């Protein structure tokens, strides 16, 4: 039996002279086996991948040993020695595939220069790309295509150990599936894989072994199937349950109230291109949740903006409790504050350089009836927000806190409808679950209508009363 592809012993990573950010990590990847390392943002998982490649950012120092493909163990602090393994023994599938390619050189010359023509064509076909792509320049490729091109270049290379750093970051569900299949095919081709991710569904699909990282330490590790079936640590259990496919569907809404938002025969398209959607009818009752989904670029964000009165549709009508905001100026002015949006990047909803508290107070300029002293404290308590956070800027709070602050800002305006545009796609699974639960609670408690835009079908199915898919 061939030696393990990777043995990490006692790996510790220190930042500057200060804190240990990764400590006592022991990991092993069998030859041709798969190990998925899962953890929250800031848990140190990417640092482990960087340490193995000898690519730790400046200011970080590693100790411990790393043994690769049966070679003698190397001190993890000797980045120079680890770099000697590049290309022959280890290969990286980078987080941002497009940044890894020289924008001024054709794919073929760049990646397949030393490969025989037939091998290159076969590798490209294996990842579902036409051979002509070798003539393209990297900026012409989408992120997904760039990733496939890189996988093809790995297929023609020799390195037995592949390290994939967050391969699913920022992908929609369709591309997520492609990425999963690519990684599985690399595993089937006999390569050993170390996959770093925070995506539970991806970890489950890849199988192999699973290690759960929390604050720089491994809290649980074992056969993937066994860990998913019977997690021993409560932290692991919370993680697995945070996967939307495990959520219990919420109770269906039964209100047959007059709709708080409706759209009839909506059409929108960019000039000279076929319409993104056409003849679309939408109906959101009070306390109801409607989900909008579809692949990237299908126009779901635009549809959200049309419903919010931000962008007129090419055809059709929007109705805010019976008034059309695009035709009835008075209604638009009167109802403006009642139709609100929860953004994908919560921190960016607040003006940088001004504390969030001051920005909540600014709302009095447009909502004279607002009484912060009366309305704010109970709201903060309900959203579990520390009042001291209001003294900070939005960039200085965590992602989950920022999203709850953004929610507080909207709720101060007493909304009747909220369009939430991928409100949790940048949050870790645990925080995502908490935030969605909070949203549901508010929808049910206040009788607010919710339009939830997203790409995670499992999440939408578990949260919404009705799902509309746009495009294709």
């Amino acid at each position, binding site marked *: 039996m061939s030696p393990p592809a990777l043995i990490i012993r006692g790996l510790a990573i220190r930042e500057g002279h200060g804190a240990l950010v990764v400590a006592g990590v022991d990991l092993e990847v069998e030859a041709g086996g798969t190990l998925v390392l899962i953890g929250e943002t800031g848990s140190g998982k990417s640092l482990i991948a960087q340490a193995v490649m000898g690519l730790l950012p400046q200011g970080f120092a590693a100790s411990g040993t790393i043994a690769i493909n049966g070679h003698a163990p190397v001190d993890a602090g000797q980045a120079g020695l680890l770099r000697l393994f590049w290309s022959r023994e280890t290969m990286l599938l980078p987080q941002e595939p497009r940044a890894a390619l*020289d*924008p001024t*050189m054709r794919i073929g010359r760049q990646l397949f220069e030393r490969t025989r023509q037939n091998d290159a064509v076969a590798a490209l076909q294996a990842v579902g790309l036409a051979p002509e792509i070798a003539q393209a320049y990297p*900026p012409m490729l989408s992120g997904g295509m760039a990733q496939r091109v890189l996988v093809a270049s790995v297929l023609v290379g020799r390195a037995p150990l592949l390290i994939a750093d967050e391969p699913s970051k920022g992908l929609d569900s369709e591309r997520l599936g492609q990425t999963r299949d690519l990684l599985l095919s690399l595993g089937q081709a006999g390569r050993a894989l170390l996959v770093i991710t925070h995506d539970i569904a991806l970890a489950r699909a890849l199988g192999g072994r699973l290690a759960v990282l929390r604050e720089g330490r491994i809290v649980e590790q074992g056969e993937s199937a066994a860990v998913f079936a019977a997690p021993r640590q409560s932290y692991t259990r919370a993680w697995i349950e945070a996967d939307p496919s495990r959520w219990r569907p919420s109770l269906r809404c039964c209100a047959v109230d007059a709709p708080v938002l409706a759209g009839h025969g909506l059409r929108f398209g960019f000039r000279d291109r076929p319409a993104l959607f056409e003849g679309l009818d939408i109906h959101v009752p009070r306390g109801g949740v409607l989900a909008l989904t579809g692949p990237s670029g299908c126009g779901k964000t635009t549809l959200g903006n049309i419903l919010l009165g931000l962008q007129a549709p090419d055809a059709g009508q929007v109705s805010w409790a019976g008034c059309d905001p695009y035709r009835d100026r008075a209604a638009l002015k009167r109802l403006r504050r009642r139709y609100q949006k929860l953004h994908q990047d919560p921190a960016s909803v607040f003006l940088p350089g001004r504390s969030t508290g001051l920005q909540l107070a600014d709302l009095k300029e447009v909502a004279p009836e607002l009484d912060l002293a009366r309305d704010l404290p109970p709201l903060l308590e309900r959203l579990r927000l520390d009042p001291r956070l209001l003294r900070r800027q939005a960039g200085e709070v965590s992602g989950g806190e920022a999203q709850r602050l953004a929610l507080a800002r909207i709720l101060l305006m007493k909304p009747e409808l909220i369009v939430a545009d991928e409100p949790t796609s940048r949050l870790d699974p645990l925080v995502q679950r908490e935030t969605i639960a909070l949203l549901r609670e508010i929808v049910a408690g206040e009788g607010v209508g919710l339009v939830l835009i997203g790409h995670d079908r499992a999440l939408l199915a578990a949260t919404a009363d009705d799902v509309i898919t746009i495009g294709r």
Partner: protein
Amino acid sequence: MRPALTLLGSRAAQAALTAWLLATLCFGFIHALPGDMALRIAAARVGDERVTVETTERIRREEGLDRPLAVQYAAWLSRVATGDLGQSLVSRQPVRQEIAYHGRFTLGLGALGWLVSYLIALPLGIACGFAPGGWLDRVTTGIAVALASLPSFLVGIGLISVFALSLRWLPPAGYRTGAHMVLPALTLALGLAAFSVRIIRNAVVEVRGAFYMTFARIRGRSAASAFRHHGVRNAAIPVATFAALQFAYMVDGFVVVEMLFNYPGLGELLVKALLARDVPVVMGAGLVIGLVYAGVNLLADLACLALDPRQAARFPA
């Protein structure tokens, strides 16, 4: 090929607009000057003492100065458009001839200054880019900032007082021999290099830090091979773009440098014409400078297009 044509079109439009604005400006100035236009021309042609009412009136008719202003403007524009720039009011020479004579000198000086500036800036900038923060980088940055804070006439005065007055190695002014070119060209080159050395250094630093360089090495290239294959071309893009912008600095530079060194180039011609209110010459010199600027911009655009496939997307067919 299509993007190149689009570029050519937009730069030609830029040149045409420059020419139109300059011609209009000059026309406006001529007519805004106080006093009778015909009288001024007459005085310029025959001398102040010998001007008579008859000559003035004849000139007024001949030159069409009695026509409405709009008609005169149209006639003026069509003359400029056909390349007829008229005669210098001072030397009576055709403006084209004057420009051809002085342009030669400026061309030589500019080319030499440009060449010397890159002889200085390229090796220095690349060396600094390979060791950012090192002593060479810090010293070069300091000198470059200081040089960039000096108007070119101060650089020139400094060079004159050292090399011409103290050391007496080189002549302080004039244009007859090659030695006369050294100080003006060096003045120009130092001013240009002060900026380009930073651009080159930053381009090299940026490219060396780009992830595609690291990734090329992960794929098995050596550091030197990665820089040759992926570094040089990417670093050249911002440098080529900047080279065109630098032409704008060149204009400030050679106008002042030529005056300082008494060097008979276009800049000197322009300033002397301005001081003498010699409108046709001012317009001619201005036109040539503006058109050459548009041409230099076009060349830089084409260079970037050849270097950078992303640029093609900026000019959709």
